[in-house]
Structures are given as structure tokens and as C-alpha cells.
């Protein structure tokens, strides 16, 4: 018994006219998705070369969902993306070399070597770094929204979760608090249908995770996460609604996790047919086709973009590889913050 609305897909540029995207924006979306995938493909290589310690997570197949939401955020909105959302970091403008540096445990990584893989975020871009205990950042995003509300700022917080993490109490408490106070927060659920090896049917009892929104007093929407423009449209709508005081929305973006939970996982438990079906729905391929159909992209500009992306990634990789590892003397630095790191001690 579904409760949430299912978003109708975007078909033509007209559908997104009120979303105010021009050609440049549309090509930028494309570029962002390519960079996102490129980072993770190169990451695989680095990992197998032994240059990335620990583990390595990707969001292959989630590029459209991530980039679509991030594109709908305004500059001073904030977000708490998770490990499938490299596209969010790229779209917000995170320096790519620092992402590689992060993976390789370098001092110039976004977590300065203190944390690894996708536990990264550039706070200056309004992004807050995730932790492993998902969805621990959901209440944090709600807190950001609370601050915006108290200060009456037209800003929105975007809180990401996966399909598995939605089972934890943090999700419930966060959404409940947000619903009670109608906070300016949008909840994004990256439902890639598998939480490690656990399929949706073993993760929740409702038809859609988006159905839960009603339990908290707000709207839930199920969206084809492989369709970047539909994602964008729904995200844009939800974010602006929040900004206008309309309270939270829960967007469930459905995709398939195209690779294992992490690099060590071959995902044998995912049925072949499902993989094949979603390969056909690959968000980047789909979007490229759409761009060409809508005459925003031709062969030449596609090639140019490809070359440009490749160069960007190569340059970034080189810079990261040349950057230093942290010194052991830095181990105990930063456990505590100093007062100087706060903006001002106090103000009226």
C-alpha cells in the first residue's frame, strides 16, 4: 500500500524550464557526472595498485541521484552526503585532487589523514563529513535546519541516508524532530536496493521508504534515481518548499548499487538480471542520450568534455600522488578545538 507520490519522469527540456537550467547548466551536470565516475574508476585502479589504504567505496549508478540533488542546492545550503554521493562533492566544487589525496591518506586530504575514503567534506562548501555509523548525520542536518529557522535564514539542509540506514533510530528521531518543528530540511534516501547484502525486503516492511514521511507529517516522493533531471526537478521542488517554510520532504531515489558494498565485495547476491536491467538505465548514458536528443550536446563537444574531464582527473591524481603523507607528530594535534577557531567568541 504505497503512500508516497511517484515522480513522473522528465521528458523534455520544457519540463524543467521552471527549474531555470540553461545549456551551460545542463552540460555542467553532464560534466559533474563524468568527473564523479572518473574519480571512482581511477580510485579502483589506485586501490588495486596499493595506493589507497583501507577500504574503497563507490557510488557507481548513483551519479545522477547525487548530482541531481546537489545541483538543486543553493550555494549557502548545507548537506550531509553519504558514501554513494561523490557526485555531491563534485557538484559543490570540491577540489578533485584533495579527494584523491584523501583516499591515499595524504595530509592534504580533506580529513588530513585523520579519516579515510569517502569520510570527506569541504566545510566551506557547506558539506559535513559523514561517519560510519549511518545515518548519524541526519540529526546533525536537522540541527543545521534548526539553526536556520532560529535565525530566520532562507537556507536549507539536505540530509542523506541509505536504504539500510533508514532502519536506525537516528533516522526516526531526525525526521520526527524535523516534522514537529517543520524545519527547512530535505531528506534524501539513496535507495540502491541493497544494504551490503541485505535487500530492501529485509530492510523495511513498507512498500517504499518514502511512505514513512507521512508518519512524520510530511510528504514523501519516490523518484527514479537514474534519471538525473527528474531527480533534479523533485529536489529543486522540495528544497524550495523547505526554503519557503513548507517543512521537510523525504525523497527516495531508487537506483541499483552497480558495484559491491565496498571494493572487497563482489556482490554475488545481486541477481544478474537486475544488474543487466540497470546497466541499461545507466544515468550517464541516459543523460548523454537525452542531451544529444535535445540538441544540447554534439559529438565534438562531447569529445571536448571527455578530454577536459580526463585532463582534470589526471592532473588531480598527479598532484595528489605528489603530496605528502602526514607526519606521526601530527597524531595528537586537533583532538580539541581552540577558541580562535570559532568565528567570534560571542556577539549580541
Amino acid at each position, binding site marked *: 500500500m504505497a503512500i508516497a507520490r511517484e515522480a513522473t519522469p522528465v521528458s523534455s527540456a520544457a519540463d524543467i524550464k521552471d527549474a531555470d537550467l540553461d545549456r551551460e547548466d545542463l552540460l555542467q551536470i553532464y560534466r559533474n557526472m563524468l568527473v564523479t565516475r572518473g574519480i571512482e574508476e581511477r580510485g579502483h585502479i589506485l586501490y588495486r595498485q596499493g595506493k589507497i589504504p583501507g577500504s574503497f567505496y563507490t557510488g557507481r549508478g548513483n551519479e545522477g541521484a547525487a548530482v541531481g540533488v546537489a545541483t538543486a542546492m543553493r550555494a549557502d545550503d548545507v548537506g550531509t552526503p553519504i558514501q554513494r554521493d561523490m557526485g555531491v562533492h563534485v557538484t559543490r566544487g570540491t577540489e578533485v585532487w584533495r579527494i584523491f589525496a584523501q583516499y591515499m591518506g595524504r595530509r592534504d586530504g580533506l580529513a588530513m589523514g585523520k579519516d579515510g575514503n569517502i569520510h570527506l567534506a569541504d566545510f566551506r562548501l557547506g558539506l559535513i563529513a559523514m561517519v560510519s555509523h549511518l545515518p548519524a548525520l541526519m540529526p546533525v*542536518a536537522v540541527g*543545521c535546519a534548526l539553526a536556520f529557522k532560529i535565525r530566520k535564514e532562507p537556507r536549507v539542509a539536505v540530509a542523506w541516508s541509505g536504504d539500510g540506514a533508514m532502519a536506525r533510530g537516528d533516522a526516526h528521531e531526525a525526521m520526527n524532530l524535523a516534522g514537529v518543528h517543520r524545519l527547512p530540511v530535505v531528506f534524501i534516501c539513496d535507495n540502491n536496493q541493497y544494504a551490503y547484502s541485505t535487500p530492501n525486503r529485509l530492510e523495511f516492511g513498507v512498500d517504499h521508504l518514502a511512505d514513512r514521511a507521512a508518519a512524520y507529517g510530511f510528504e514523501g516522493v519516490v523518484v527514479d534515481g537514474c534519471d538525473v533531471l527528474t531527480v533534479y526537478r523533485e529536489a529543486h521542488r522540495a528544497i524550495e518548499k523547505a526554503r519557503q517554510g513548507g517543512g521537510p520532504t523525504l525523497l527516495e531515489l531508487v537506483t541499483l548499487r552497480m558495484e559491491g558494498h565496498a571494493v572487497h565485495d563482489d556482490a554475488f547476491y545481486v541477481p544478474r538480471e537486475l544488474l543487466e536491467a540497470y546497466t541499461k538505465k545507466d544515468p550517464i548514458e541516459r543523460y548523454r542520450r537525452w542531451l544529444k536528443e535535445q540538441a544540447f550536446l554534439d559529438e565534438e563537444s562531447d569529445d571536448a568534455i571527455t578530454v577536459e574531464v580526463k585532463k582534470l582527473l589526471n592532473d588531480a591524481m598527479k598532484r595528489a600522488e605528489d603530496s605528502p603523507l602526514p607526519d606521526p607528530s601530527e597524531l595528537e594535534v586537533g583532538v580539541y578545538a581552540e577558541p580562535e577557531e570559532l568565528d567570534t*567568541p560571542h556577539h549580541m
Partner: protein
Amino acid sequence: MATKTYLQAISDGLREEMRRDSRVFLIGEDIGVYGGAFKVTQGFLQEFGEDRVIDSPLSETAIVGSCTGAALMGMRPVCEMQFSDFVSCAFDHLVTVAAKQHYRVGTPVPIVVRLPSGGGFSGGPFHSQNPEGFFAHCPGLKLVCPATPADAKGLLVQAIRDPNPVLFFEHKHLYRRIKGEVPDGEHTVEFGKARVHREGTDLSVITYGAMVYTAEEAATAVADKDGTSVEIIDLRTVTPWDKQAVLDSVAKTSKVLVLHEDTHTSGFGAEIAATIAEEAFENLDAPVARLTAPDTPVPFSPPLEKAFLPQVEDVVAAIDRLSAY
């Protein structure tokens, strides 16, 4: 200077900071309309409005987690766990997110979590704990345990201004029982600075929180009994703690009793005792003694609770044992 109860001092500190800094807001269960389970925030909703005095759902994770988010956005939130015992529901957030955020990614998390703690009134296992030990073990958090009204206010103000997550343990058995002089106007107390509650020469009692008063009574009793001169060091903050003051006192008296209301194994006293053994070995004229609650949940029935909590006569006995060594 004015004489205030411990509770009034805390209330004053909160109120003054909220007046002074618009970024400070409160969130917790029943703190608004009800004025707080212990009435610490009585009148606050009326003065500051519901945007800054937020009655939250029963969601410790969301309460503390949202404080982290708001703090990252530049606010100075002060949340309340209605009883310190309930902080276990937010344990994950505190140690996973709040404590580690600055270390990992360089962003300060200036939040304060107020925790009415401690027993002595048949509160039972879930309304009487002193959970500072769990959090002392987590790098990135600061822990504050004031004993006097002046320190309660000064340390609370300091906590609100500190750029780190601070757990503020208000011993609820001191709320109305203890009165003291509180400086007027702006008053802060530095973290990591112990206070010599009582000067002495024969042995040192290192303690904090409500046990400061138990120690005081015991010290008076032994002074009357046989002239033993007991020094009492009130740590005031557990993380960071004033190691030097403790070592100085041990150097002076060479006999030391570590006293806390929290349970025994891996209570913070173990850390103090180990440190004294490591760094003051050649100043010791007796083994380091610890007096704590035993390793049990806090019992409910009065005779059991009395047996659980260190009493004045227990402290006297421990002092006597040390003196005789």
C-alpha cells in the same frame, strides 16, 4: 557577590549567557513550558521565546545531534538530558560525531550537554548515575563536574564559550542543598584547574562533585577526633583534569585518597590513581587508596543506596586507614 543555591547559579549562568549571546539556545525535554524537570529553566521560555527554548521530542540522539548541526552552523546550543542516565541514548552521537568532528575534519563543535547527575534520594538505577567515566575515555569531549555554586556558574559559562563538546554534570543532590557565594557579573572558571577546597598536611583527598561535601564532613570529623589534617582537592573538571595540582598535593602529604561517587572499576579515580603511581611514586608514604561506589547499578531502597554511596563514615575510615599506614 550574592548567596545562591547551586541550582540558581546554573540558572543564572544560562540566563546571562543567553542574554549576552543570541547564538545560545536551549533544547531538551520539558525545558520550556515546564521550566525543566528541576526548574533550572523556569521562566526562560517567557523571556527568550520558543525559538530559543525548544521543547524537544523524547529523542536524545536528535537533541544532541541537532545541537551538533546547529553548532556547525555557528550557534551555541545548550541541550539538556533530563537525567544524566539518558545520555546513553546519545552516546553514539557524542562519541561518534561530536567528539571526533574536529579531529577528523577541523570543524569545531561548540555544544554543551547539561546532565543532572548523581544519587542519594532513591532515584534508582536510571535516575542516579554518574556517567562521566564512560566519556572520560573518549578523546574530544570535555567533562565538567562543579561542586560549588560559584564553580557551577563559572564553569557553565566557560562551557558555553568553549569550542568543544562539553558535558556538564550538575549533581542534582546539590541543587538546593548547597548554597554559596557567587560573584556578580561575568564569571568564568578555567577548565583543568582544580580548587583547593581545604588545605591540609597529613593526607590528600582528591575528589569532585557531591563528594567534595562528604569529604569535607569527614575531614572535619577526623580533625576533631585526632587532629589529622586533611587536604581536599576539588578537581572541578574531569577532562581536562588538573594533574599538577594533584601531584603537588601528593608531594605535600604523601598519602592520598581518591574519592568519587561513580562506580569503582574504571571510574575516573582509576585514572587519577594510576597517574599518581606513575608520576608521584617517590612521594608516596602509603599506597594510593580509592573510595568509590561499588560495581553495581545504583540501588533503589534507602539502606541499599546508603550502602552504595560513599558515606562520611566511609571516608573517615579510609582516612584513618591511610593515617595509620
